[in-house]
């Protein structure tokens, strides 16, 4: 049975074509594979670069915030405290950057050939998981070094990773669709990323927010999904800390909103990407 396609001008959001997405799942696979294969080509250190960024940041933070500013780390050794946060944070910031600029980067591709455009911002979301995996392995070595045995809470880790991925995907959809229309976004991403890091509980614990702004302020803070993700990582991996499910719950709400609205905006605007790229 030959299928008939009608191409015409659409207003609003096209319904999701599941059959088409299924047909192109192999393309997603090869694009992810391409990203992972190519990223450290012609480098000497190769995949070691994946851990340079979080480790250097950890050393600096330990010195500046742990030793000099003496920020509390809830009784956890500061290097471990910050590295637990830096592993998800590095994934988040790298992926946000790559996904946000992905449409601009591959404009020569989608103006030449048709495939579901949503695959473009989705690719870095998967390919950056390779870097994440490597730095996570280093984190495990850290835990062993500090003789920190995770409790049963470690089972919540996959869930926290899903929250992290859904958040960054939602942001990626929004930013990539906006950046292809308004290149300002590309410049904004570079300066907003560090601001977002200091807003997240990377160098300080979220208990400081609780102390200063009370429980309502703390819940409001939880709407920033990375707060729940980062404190969740600490809770899942470190025996001293429980997982703050209230933060994770609040973060999940905004992650779902970000994802759904980002998906919608992307789908609504993708029809003219090729005309304005």
């Amino acid at each position, binding site marked *: 049975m*030959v*299928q008939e396609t009608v*191409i015409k*001008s659409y207003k609003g959001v096209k319904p999701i074509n599941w059959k088409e997405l299924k047909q192109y799942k192999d393309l997603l696979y090869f694009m992810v594979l391409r990203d992972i*294969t190519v990223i450290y080509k012609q480098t000497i250190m190769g995949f070691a670069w994946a851990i340079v960024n979080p480790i250097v940041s950890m050393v600096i933070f330990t010195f500046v915030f742990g030793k000099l500013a003496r920020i509390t780390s809830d009784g956890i050794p500061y290097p471990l405290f910050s590295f637990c946060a830096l592993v998800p944070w590095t994934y988040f910031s790298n992926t946000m950057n790559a996904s946000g600029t992905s449409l601009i980067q591959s404009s020569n*591709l989608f103006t030449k*050939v048709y495939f579901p455009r949503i695959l473009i911002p989705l690719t870095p979301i998967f390919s950056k998981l390779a870097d994440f995996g490597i730095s996570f392995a280093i984190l495990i070595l850290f835990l062993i070094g500090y003789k920190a045995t995770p409790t049963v809470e470690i089972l919540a880790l996959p869930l926290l990773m899903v929250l992290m991925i859904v958040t960054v995907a939602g942001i990626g959809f929004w930013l990539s669709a906006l950046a292809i229309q308004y290149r300002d976004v590309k410049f904004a991403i570079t300066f907003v990323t560090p601001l977002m890091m200091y807003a997240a509980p990377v160098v300080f614990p979220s208990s400081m927010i609780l102390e200063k702004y009370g429980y309502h302020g703390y819940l409001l803070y939880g709407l920033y999904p990375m707060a729940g993700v980062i404190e969740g990582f600490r809770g899942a991996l470190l025996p001293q800390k429980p997982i703050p499910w209230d933060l994770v719950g609040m973060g999940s709400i905004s992650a779902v909103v970000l994802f759904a609205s980002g998906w919608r905006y992307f789908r609504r605007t993708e029809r*003219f990407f*090729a*005309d304005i790229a």
Partner: protein
Amino acid sequence: MSDYVIQANGLSKAYRLGLKDAKNDTLGATLASWVKSPAKNYNRLRKLSRFDPTKDDEEDMFWALRDMSFSVAQGEILGIIGRNGAGKSTLLKILSKITDPTLGEIRIKGRVAALLEVGTGFNLELTGRENIFLNGTILGMTRKEVTKKFDEIVDFSGVEKFIDTPVKRYSSGMKVRLGFAVAAHLEPEILIIDEVLAVGDAEFQKKCLGKMQGISAVEGRTVLFVSHDMSAVGTLCNKCLLLERGRIDMVGETPMAIQKYTQNVSGSSIEDYHESTIRLQIEEVTPTQLVAKAFFKILENNLLDGVFHLRLYDGANFELMFYKEKDIRIYDNEYVEIKMDVSSFKAGYYSIQVKYAASTIDLSKRVVLASDFTPVMVDRDTFKYEKGSIAPPVQLINTTRNFQY
């Protein structure tokens, strides 16, 4: 059920042209516009993608396609011909779902694969093998389909020996062959091909033509073929669609369409040639690198998308380099810059020719390379040397060749 595979009904596509801002003549007005510019830019960028098709009298709207209706039967090889800016590329982009029409609709039966540019999505760092899979899935194949066709693809491309070499080490011919080989082994009901035959050597071109004929005759697939090469269109297509300024000029038998096209091209030459002027300037960057800058002076707002060519010939008029950029829009006082590596060239006379095909202007210039590879520029009009040349060029040869535009 009727036997058409493609049916277009009132297809139209509008684009917005970026019009120039009004110039300010006072400092105050300049400052005011500078303050206001973010809001203005926002409106301008937003407007680019938003149309009200009922209002087509807006001054910066440009209709690339207007009210096109046609149908294509199964198994047909349809040639799409027309001058640059006639709307061929836009039509193909709509057919291949890259962009939506502003008005009208098009019904397509079956899977469409479009080959608008050979090797789209090739990653230079990846090997030939990896790129076959990447490129194949970009074109809509599944991993299983590529695996099944893999040996055939490699065989057709003739790059067996280098299949595990990164594509960046390939010659440009090898890249093209590999790209075409992947696309030719798609199994779509409708195959769209845009000027792929402009590249590759004669033997490979023949192979491609044969493959396309086979696809249509043996497998009953429909092929849409866009080209400026009338001899290829003549041998391959049974029917042609001739486009002119966004509308269908005629649909019919290939020989008649080609005749009409040739008339159009030569008939309109006088009015079109005057619309623009072009100036070629050669500069030396390093002793082994030249930069050719082509400046355009556009008298009327002739913003057709065009093809820009640059060719380098040696003293015996043998083509050494060919540079081509498609679908470029050139505005007044803009220039296109091409870097040329001349380190491997012997001393002697060379000529550089540029051509901008939308208005068919061409210009050539002599360049002298001295024995120490110091390029010497000779201005075409004045015959003045600019830098220590070894001998004056005796005569300037205009090496314009006849190629169909």
